[in-house]
């Protein structure tokens, strides 16, 4: 697979109350973004465990985007605090495995931020295309 037609696979874990709703709003507003993302709706970004993220990378995801409510707006009060903690730890872990930590991205996107949602997916997809296929995927294939 050459880099020019590299179509990355991106997994999005979006919380039901903010980012998933922001994604819907992007739709209602007809804002276009690359179709490489596959969305898993979760109740709270705090529902996403490190194992879920690692599974995605193990199974060949080139990027994982987690979306939650802005700090202070969490539907469950402080679920997203846990998300921050896990992000820091996971990015260290990714670095340790030789994977670029930038393949995992966290963004707070509210239900009103359709444009921000579309922009985030656009930017993240571009970034992943620049990074190329995930080394974890290549390693898994080689093994």
């Amino acid at each position, binding site marked *: 697979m050459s880099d020019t037609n590299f179509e990355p696979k991106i997994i999005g874990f979006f919380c039901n109350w903010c980012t998933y709703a922001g994604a819907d709003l992007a739709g*209602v*507003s*007809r804002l*276009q973004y690359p*179709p490489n993302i596959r969305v898993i709706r979760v109740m709270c970004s705090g529902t996403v465990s490190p194992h879920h993220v690692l599974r995605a990378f193990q199974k060949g995801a080139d990027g994982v985007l987690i979306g939650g409510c802005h700090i202070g707006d969490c539907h469950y009060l402080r679920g997203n605090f846990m998300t921050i903690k896990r992000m820091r730890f996971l990015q260290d872990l990714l670095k340790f495995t030789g994977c670029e930590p930038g393949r995992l991205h966290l963004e707070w996107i509210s239900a009103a931020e359709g444009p921000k949602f579309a922009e985030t997916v656009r930017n993240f997809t571009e970034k992943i295309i620049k990074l190329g296929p995930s080394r974890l995927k290549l390693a898994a294939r080689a093994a």
Partner: protein
Amino acid sequence: MRQRARYIDMAKCIACGLCAEKCPKKVPDEYNLGLAKRKAVYLDYAQAIPPKFAIDKETCLFFKKGGKCKACEKFCPTGAVDFSQVDEDKDIAVGAVILAAGFRPYDPTKYSAYHYANFPNVITGLEFERILAAAGPFSGHMVRPSDHKEPTRIAWLQCVGSRDLNHCDNSHCSAVCCMYAIKEAIIAKEHSKEPLDAAIFYMDIRTHGKEFEKYYWRARDEFGVRFIRSRIHTIDPVPGTDDVAIRYLMEDGTLKTEIFDMLILSNGFEVSPQVLELAKTLGVEVNANKFAETSSFTPVSTSRPGVYVCGAFQGPKDIPQSVMEASAAAAASSELLSPARFSLAKKKPVFEERDVSQEVPRIGVFVCHCGINIASVVDVEAVRDYAKTLPYVEHVENSLFACSQDTQGLIKERIREHKLNRVVVASCTPRTHEPTFQETIKEAGLNKYLFQMANIRDQGSWVHANVPAAATRRAKDQVRMAVATAALQPPLQEFDLPVTKAGLVIGGGAAGMEAAMGLAGQGYKVDLVEKKDFLGGHALKLNSTWNGEAVQPYVDDLIKRVNNHPQIEVRLNSEVTNVEGFVGNFKSTVTTQGRDSVVEHGTTIIAMGGHSFKPKEYLYKDNPRVLLSLEMDQALREKNPMITGAKCAAFIQCVGSREPERPYCSRVCCTHSVESALQLKEINPDMDVYVLYRDLRTYGLRENLYKEAREKGVIFIRYNLEDKPKVEQNAKGELTVTVRDHILGILVHLHPEVLTLASAIIVKDQEKLAQLYKVPLTNDGFFLEAHMKLRPVDFATDGVFVAGLAHYPKPMDESIAQAKAAVARASVVLAQDAIRAGGVVAQIDAAACSGCQACVGVCPFGAISYKEREDVCEVNQALCKGCGTCAANCPSECITLFGFSHKQIYTQVDEALAELEAMEEAAG
């Protein structure tokens, strides 16, 4: 009541937006305050509920040009446009009316010196809110209107249309503008790529709300927002540019000119003529400032019995206060109507549920065209055929509109016909349509949780409109993920927990007594627990409310009514010492002088009150002439000769408040001192009365008192935290107060015969109660509600509520409103016969649990407890809100969030990436 025609059939509109896309008529968008355009057929704003379009008759070409155009009707895929609709006049029989008519932002056009109408870069605070909003006219890109340049210098001018009798008749303070200007300044700084200069020109900074003072300090100290105390007289254009120049007097008297890219007028609140008309129609009286007339003791009751008021029409106020009042108005009306409760309620029919637990999954997949919304981009037939190849799928079908009545009937038929036990619908978003489909499969005898949606419209065809092949690929993937997770979905049970229809109120002050009376008025039994041997609390020490109503007769009457109420049991000399149970089923141990009794109750209202801070400065307790505010009230009440005979009196504000060790404003003290100062002036108009203050915070209509005090000769001297007044006494006990006059810049020496210290309001001994009911406290020691704005009297822990000073310092009227609000919130629990629990909740597999308790601490709702004997943790499903934070934190993954189990998430991840794997394998 007149309901205007919307010319769109609500039942048919699917909010696809095609009508607006095709509509040729562009008009200014009111939601974006004219900064953007909308069409004549429009949705009020993106998150409008219900999401249904409407035709604006005033601008629509069909109505304006006599029956031409009809583009919307031509293109609407569901035939929802209906030009034959007419305005409807309806008669509705009601027992109570709640007026929540809101405010109108002041129109600064009349301030000719501010050139709002002429200079494009002079805008209002609300307009700037829209500019900053992600969904606003510039997609959240901060630009100025004239040339869309990113500003690097922005100034805010406070009190535009507030505290002003020159340009308008608004003597009141609008109470929210200081805070919103600070917020906008911080957000602007965060938005700006270049370093942004933000300057706020103000008279007094009024950050009197909970946690507001700290926010102000952060803006100043961390974000570098400049606060300049000056009321701007005139602004000038800067020739050759779109900039504006401000000339102002600095505090030292020097004249300065600064140039800004943009000027934001912090415009205040006023009542619109339409609302005044409505008030007149309803026979509701308004006060001199044109807000609804209310008493401090019945803050949400209008002059007309049965008509209640809340929000900004009651008086200028912020969101937390408005939300509180909304609940209070609900409580007041439901108290009035409690005999009629549920008399008009209809019961939902119950459907027999088929037991599918032993069946192999049989999934039906319905792929929606949504007219052309999906089908014009996604190859819906291909998606349907693809779905047929997936494991456990027994039936596939396309539908023009999956959400239509016909298709709902069809889905039910197919469930029976093919013995389906799971349903997947590939269409729009579960956020709006999942409940509809769940209801449908329930009617067909399936557990409503045996349902999944694949979002192929809002997150499919609409966002990948130009890449149909990729959109179809994505739709197939999302369907595969939905089918796989549906196959793993077990039926979920919901169960009912009985509710003890009784309330416990802690604290026998005004808030506690009002809460007890409110609950009893709704028909519930109440236990009122008071630590002291009498009821009344601090209200007993207050002379009058800010608008001059005598407090004593009110409190005496309230105590009498509480004591005589057959539904209220007053427990004096008592404390809560142990708490078991949870919402609907509390068992609290009340200890009365050593004797324990267990009270069973469904809800708890904490109204334990506050205390006045006893300062160690300004000679308090060292000199009998130095009093605290409430001691001053007592002296006034008792006509103490030290007061009545005084020729000079002084007040010092912010004693113990707004200091590093107590970084909050105590909210009531400015008004209280101004009120006392006025009473002194009444006793002796020649008395010299000085108020030494930092910012005078007579918010809302209280500003009228401040004005009156200045008119009557009370002298206000401002001091800084860094240069506090000094109080000394001589051998005869005579006081000298030395303070630097803010205008003259020199030290002045005052010789008051009585000095009143407006000391802070604090809470004491609250930690134990907080622990017992598992509710949090702020750093300042006040009880911390679930959400400062949206849930101002609730806690994250269900069934526990807060009111009065224990929540934050507040005056009598606000305490009473909050007590009523707590009653409304508690009644939501108590009015039910049972609490429905279960569904999407977490469960711990006790066999796999190691008792590490990693889940206990992360649960925001206190729903998980550790059972010591078994060494395992357990979720109380009545308290669980289904966030799944515990499941993600469990190191052994022995916690399942039903509907979002680990297995379901892993499977979705696997399926999302499966095609890729298969393709690569095929490619070798």
